[in-house]
Structure formats: C-alpha cells, structure tokens
C-alpha cells in the first residue's frame, strides 16, 4: 500500500499542478525570453531576433537620431507613480483599517458577524464595476464635483483623471484586504493587556503605541502585502480614473500589447513589475522576521 501511495498522490495532484505550471509558469518563462527580443512586424515579436537588453535600456534611455543615448524620464515616472501610489494606498489602508478592525472586535457577536460580511462582500464584487461607480461620482457633472466646486473658491477643480482619483479608487478597491487580517488579530486580542497598560498609568495614545500597534504587527504585515501587491499591478483603476495622463505600470504593459504592438517592451516592463514585487515580498519577509524578534 505504501508503495502505491506516491503514485496515487501524483495522479491526484498532477493534473492541477500541470495546469498551473503550463498556463502560468511556462508563459512567464516565455515572457522573460520575449523581453530580450526585438519587436516584429506582423505579430508583436520577432522570434528570430538576437537577444539583447535593449528593451530594458529603453525604460531609462532613448536613442537619438545619431545613436547617442538620452535620458528619458517618461517610463521611469510611470514606474515611480506605481510604487508611490501602491505605498500611499497601503499607508492609508493601515491608518483607516486599524481603527475599523478595533471597532469590529469591540462589537457584540451578532452585530460583528454582520459587519464582517459587509466588509467581505466588496471583495467578491466586480472590481471594474466598483471603480466605475467612482467614475460616476467624481465626474464633472456629478454631485460631488458640483459640491466641491461650490465650496472651493479658487477656480474649477477637476476631480477625475489625476493621481488623487487613482488613490481614492485603489484604497476603495483594496481596503477590505487590510481590515480583515487586522480584525483576525484583534479577534484573539487579550484585552486585559490594555487594561494593564491603563492601570500602569498609560494614556490612550501611549496604550495604542506601546500595546495595540506592536500586537497588531502580524496583521499590519499581512494586510500590507495583500494591499501593496495588487495595487502595484493594478490596471482597471488607473484605466478608468486616471484617464490617459496618469498611467501605472499595468496600463503601460497593456498599451504595448494594444496600440503600440511592442510585445518585447511590454514583456520587459512585466519582468520589472515582477522583480519589484519580489523585492517587496522579500522586504516584507525581513520586516516580519524583525517584528517577530522584537516581540
């Protein structure tokens, strides 16, 4: 029996494993290869071209007519926007998610389950539709736009198609990913620790800083990962709320596979996005290790 067990196990696990490897793993390998090739004429890639790092260089320099390399900040600024939008989204989600999770943990059980369901539902509804809802709210002839312009004395304000609109959309899209892991921590929280802090003369601010936040660290770390990674690779939010001016990496990648028809360049940006993501994951792993050591 023990002799056949590994074989049976392989038969059970194999199909799913092969599906993911063939449809996710192999494509990613092809993508790394394509990122080294030149662009094609009929389809987006010339399979016969000599591999080079030209597509990665294009992210930083552009070639002049006589072949000299000039610094080109266009793509770097899009990379930079993606990183800081994702970082700002994560920071706002921590600041807002922490009090919400604390509040949820303090609710009586019945009400608490209702609130958990209310926070979970957006997670499962269509991301495109949820971002579209903000498009309706922020548009020029919308009520919010009208109210803001009535109150703002210094000329007309455009709420849509800028970085702030993207930030609002990203926070809206991913806030539940921060609230839920934080709540999972506070659910098991030993509230006597907080009482002890007060008994020892700590005020609320000090209790928050010295007791609640350190204990919430595992939730903050897990939530930051769940918010930062999808924000960095997001497409829909900037496509709808950023207009053509404010692009993120996902939109730049889509452009290379759409209008620009430059697959190798799109593949190179994708590789950079994956590399950034790995760096962040490694950074978070380090942060987690340090947080575990300090408690």
């Amino acid at each position, binding site marked *: 029996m023990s002799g056949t067990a590994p074989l*049976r*196990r*392989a038969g*059970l*696990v194999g*199909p*799913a*494993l092969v*599906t*993911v490897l063939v*449809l*996710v793993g*192999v*494509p*990613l390998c*092809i*993508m790394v290869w394509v990122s080294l090739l030149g662009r094609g004429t009929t*389809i987006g*890639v010339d399979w016969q071209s000599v591999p080079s790092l030209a597509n990665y260089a294009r992210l930083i320099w552009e070639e002049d007519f006589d072949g000299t390399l000039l610094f080109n900040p266009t793509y770097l600024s899009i990379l930079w926007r993606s990183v800081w939008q994702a970082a700002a989204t994560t920071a706002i989600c921590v600041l807002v998610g922490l*009090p919400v999770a*604390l*509040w949820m*943990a*303090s609710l009586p059980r019945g009400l608490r389950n209702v609130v958990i*369901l*209310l926070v979970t539902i*957006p997670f*499962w*509804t*269509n*991301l*495109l*539709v*949820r971002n*579209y*809802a*903000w498009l*309706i*709210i922020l548009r020029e002839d*919308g009520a919010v736009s009208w109210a803001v312009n009535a109150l703002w004395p210094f000329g007309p304000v455009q709420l849509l198609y800028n970085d702030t609109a993207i930030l609002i959309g990203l926070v*809206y899209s991913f*806030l*539940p990913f921060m609230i839920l892991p934080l709540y999972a921590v506070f659910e098991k929280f030993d*509230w006597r620790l*907080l*009482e002890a802090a007060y008994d020892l003369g700590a005020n*609320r601010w000090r209790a928050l800083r010295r007791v609640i936040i350190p204990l919430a660290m595992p939730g903050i770390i897990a939530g930051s990962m769940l918010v930062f*990674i*999808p924000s*960095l*690779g997001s497409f*829909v939010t900037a496509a709808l709320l950023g207009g053509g001016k404010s692009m993120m990496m*996902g939109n730049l*990648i*889509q452009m290379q596979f759409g209008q620009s028809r430059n*697959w190798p360049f*799109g*593949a190179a940006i*994708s590789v950079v996005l*994956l590399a950034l993501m790995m760096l962040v994951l490694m950074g978070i792993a380090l942060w987690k290790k340090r947080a575990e050591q300090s408690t």
Partner: protein
Amino acid sequence: MNLRRLPLTREIGLGVLVYLYVPVVVLIVYSFNANRTATVWTEFSLDWYRKILANPSIREATWNSLVLAAAAGIGSTLLALAAALGTKTRFRGRGLVEAVLNAPLILPEVVVAVATLMLFVAIGVELGMAAMIPAHIAFCIPFAFLPIKARLDGMNPSLEEAAQDLYANRLITFRRVTLPLLWPGILAGFTLAFVTSLDDFLTSFFLSGPGSTTLPVYIFSAIRAGITPEINAISTIMLIVSVALVVTSFLFGRMRR
C-alpha cells in the same frame, strides 16, 4: 468606561462602511433613473433594463460569460478536488505544491494575462473561448482549492477509517463517506471559482477574440465609449449576481452533515 472601545473607532468604522457602500448605492439608484443625464433624478423607470435585455450584443456577452464561468468553475473544481485529496497527508514538497497551486492569487493578473497571450500566439491557439477557458481554469484553481482543502482538513479521519474497517474498498469509502462529507466544501469552491471567472476582466480582455466578448469586457469598452445609464443597469445586475452567489457559497461553507 468600556475599555475595549477606543475613541473615534466607531465613527471611523461607520464612516468606512458608508465609504464602501455609497458609490455602489449611487450606481444602483442611477440605473433606475428615467433621465439620460445620469446626474439629475427625474423619476423611477425600468427603461434601461428593458433596453439592455433587448440589446443583442449584451445578450451574447452574457451568454459567453456564463458558459466561460461554468466551464472554468467545473474544470477548476475537479482539478482542485483531486489536488486537495492528494495533499491531505504530509509529504516532502507539499508546501511547494500548494504554493504553486496558489500562485495565481499573488501574481499580478495583467502580467499573467499578457504572458498567456504570448504562449497562445506562439503555439497557434486561436484567441476566444478556446484560449479563455484554460486560462480561467488556471487562475480559478486556488479559489476552488482553498474551501475544499479547509473542509477536508476539518474532517474527522476516523470516519474513513471506520468505513475501511467495515470492509468498504477505497472507491466505496470515497463515494459513500468522503464525498458526502466534502460536498459543502466542493459547492463553496465551485461557487467562488464561478464568481471569480464571471467577474474577471483582465484575462478575458487580452484573450477574447471577435465574437467571444464577455460581459466585463463589454462593460469596459462601453465605459470607454461614454458613460450611459445602460452601463449602470448591467453593472447593477452583475453586482447582484455576484453578491447572491457569494452569500450562497458562505451558506454552503457553513452547511453541516
């Protein structure tokens, strides 16, 4: 003084619930507005729903989305069920196997979508349903895998042992004991995989061909062409369908046998 209740947390909590739901409610309300300029409320009307029901390209996109979600849901649930059964006991490399199966959850969808596009073009798969179904099956696997796995982990192993002690062979044990106990997990996994596929926009956006547009892809191009009350109406229907399915899945997950 309730020590658990910190100042302002309730206000922020309620504020966040409002923030999460107001945009969606605004969208739904406007879908019932008789006026075409989506900003002024005139009167209640079902005109936009009538219009989208009569629109042949929306009907076709809805059909495509449902076929795709059913295929992706069934395919990924079968694969995930087998994988969950295969990873029930500990073995060397189990952590790695589970990490690979769950990889679609963490990888940026736009990257995986364009990478899959390149694979299909390289090997000559025509874009459309034939490309979308396998790609959807792949990224739906973790959504089906996790609930089935959770159910399996929570199962009492002595029930299977008892069946084997009573001379049930492996197949009979599976059919009469394991499967009935696992059924709620399978249904929950299928529903989540179905919703994930139904709501997916990016993968379908890159892999759909002419005539195989799905509903989210249709909505995206419609938004690009200009905001209309019809989009509000289709979006409302999509929201209601997803919420209904997810609530169903939660109920399946809580089911006891």
